């Protein structure tokens, strides 16, 4: 198990490295020079060159680069990527162009909002998706099953941004109520006020993911219920409740956990949307605003942050397999 985790961590580092190189290159090969915007109006060729020099944009991209002619490779100690990665490893993530504050500082102040949205969304997803999935599978073809199945089909089709917009628009029209938007209340200052701000956003996001989990729990449990050991469990006189919850549920959870892990990565995208609508100052909002500005440092950092989250989630999912199904051993 330890070697497995170590190996996965190592491959995670490789994935993050490849991700950082890809995004680094992508940001530089697309049209649009950040120096031109910095330079402002009345910009001259010399002015742009001076900014290039100041930002180090005149240097080669990578320490090792391909050349058209012999010797086909060129090496330089003084490359843009080399400086970037050395800086990041020292903990300096650069400066945001949004407000000229350090990127690291901004992430720390905005992280709690996004993490809160994601944790509450996952809680809603699990608390709604799994129980209703079980009910639907055990009462197959009953009216409840049909209701659960139709609502999950609907939940997968409804765009979260539309539901969020309706949550803003409809209550204000009919009851004169508006979800509390605007400045974020810190969790520690006022837990209830804080929950009131984050819960609508999380509920909207959970609608789609709970629908997916409901559907998956149902089909996975139905598959498990066909297995011989389920018949054995019933035959030895266990109550149906114990058969389903002890023997069925745990065995049916592997695909569900896999998808929950993938949903976390989807939620990083979903957070961008709900943070816009409910004007919550989280990382999604930061990412979107910095993208519009083509802010190199922030976009690079945010992709790395997404990469780290995803790698960590995948590891967590794989480790949980071994706990759910002891037949799965990692060596």
């Amino acid at each position, binding site marked *: 198990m330890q070697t497995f985790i170590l190996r996965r961590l190592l*491959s995670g580092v490789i*994935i993050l490295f*490849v*991700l950082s190189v890809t*995004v680094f290159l*992508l*940001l530089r090969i*697309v*049209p*649009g020079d950040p120096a031109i915007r910095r330079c402002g109006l009345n910009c001259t060729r010399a002015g742009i060159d001076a900014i290039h020099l100041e930002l180090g944009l005149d240097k080669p991209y990578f320490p090792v680069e391909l050349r058209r002619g012999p010797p086909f490779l060129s090496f330089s100690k003084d490359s843009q990527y080399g400086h970037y990665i050395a800086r990041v490893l020292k903990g300096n993530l650069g400066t945001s162009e949004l407000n000229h504050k350090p990127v690291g500082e901004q992430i720390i102040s905005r992280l709690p909002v996004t993490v809160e949205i994601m944790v509450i969304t996952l809680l809603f997803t699990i608390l709604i998706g799994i129980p209703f999935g079980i009910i639907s599978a055990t009462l*197959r*073809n009953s009216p409840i099953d049909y209701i659960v*199945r139709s609502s999950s*089909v*609907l939940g*997968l*089709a*409804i*765009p979260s*941004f*539309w539901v969020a*917009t*309706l949550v*803003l*628009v*409809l209550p*204000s*029209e009919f009851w004169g109520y508006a979800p509390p938007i605007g400045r974020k209340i810190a969790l520690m200052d006022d837990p209830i006020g804080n929950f009131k701000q984050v819960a609508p956003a999380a509920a909207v996001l959970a609608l789609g993911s709970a629908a997916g989990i409901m*559907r998956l729990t*149902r*089909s996975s449990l*139905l*598959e498990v219920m066909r297995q011989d050991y389920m018949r054995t469990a019933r035959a030895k006189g266990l109550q149906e409740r114990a058969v389903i919850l002890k023997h069925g549920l745990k065995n049916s959870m592997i695909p569900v956990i896999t998808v929950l892990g*993938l949903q976390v*990565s*989807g939620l*990083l*995208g*979903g957070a*961008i*949307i709900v943070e*816009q*609508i409910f004007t919550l100052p989280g990382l999604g909002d930061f*990412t*979107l605003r910095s*993208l*519009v500005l*083509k802010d190199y440092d922030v*976009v690079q950092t*945010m*992709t790395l942050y*997404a*990469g780290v989250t*995803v*790698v960590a*989630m*995948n590891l967590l999912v794989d480790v949980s397999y071994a706990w759910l199904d002891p037949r799965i051993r990692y060596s």
Partner: protein
Amino acid sequence: MPENVSVQSPAVLADMGISERSEGISATLRKLGTLARQNPLGTVGLIIILVFAGAALLAPYLAPYSATALSGAKNEGMSSAHLFGTEVVGRDIFSRVMFGGRISMSVAFISVIGGASAGMLIGIISGYFGGTIDSIIQRTVDTAIAFPALLLLLIVTQLLGPSFRTIVFALTLAVIPGVARIVRGAVLSEKNNQYVEAARSTGAWAPRILLRHILPNVIALGIIVMTTLLGGIILAEASLAFLGLGVPNAASWGRDVSDARLAFPYHIPSAIFPGAAITLTVLGFNILGDSIRDIADPRLRGSR
């Protein structure tokens, strides 16, 4: 028609490019009718899609107003002149819903067909050759599947500048990894079949085996995957448009939902109708996709 043709079996006739036309059409219709009766949900999905696709295609002829005409006052309610009312600057919502489908559907179809074709090619190569190529492709696919799709779409479209072409490009990229993964699995089980071995033993070279023997057997799977992806791609395109990174200057359901937040006080029809159009279209594609998968693999029926 040569005289001796009639003694041939129907399969041979079909191969010869001759079909029994007079019976062919009614038989096909009857088969379709049975298929529709056996899959009522899929039929409903298909009808929804046909209605929205038809409305989008014929919008320039059928829509009461153009998508951009200021045809009424701001935020009008529903009336006979404006079936769904007018939105925040006075454009007819019904017409905009009709026109909005044009971008959503064309973007979705082009990128799903493009992405699925590329994904199938990559999946076939990865599954057939195995070894180092396979591991490199699969690790890349792992990373691509796990990376937040919306973030990828936002980065690509914003950096290249939002336009029809860049959005199609970004969505195509998003489609490739999932298809490659599924097709690879199918190829792995397909390539051990005896007919592949037979082809190889006759000395056929790899591209021929791939194109003549493996591709036809995974193409059905590819089409099923494409149908199930369409709904998700329409959602993704709408999300981009909602965030302001859709095709510029085009009527779009996603952007209209976003604009609905600008009205003050809020105007209910502007918020409801474009979003309902997205939901119904995605719903149509999803239930049609489920149905097609059930027909292709009856073991899955009722499991979803």
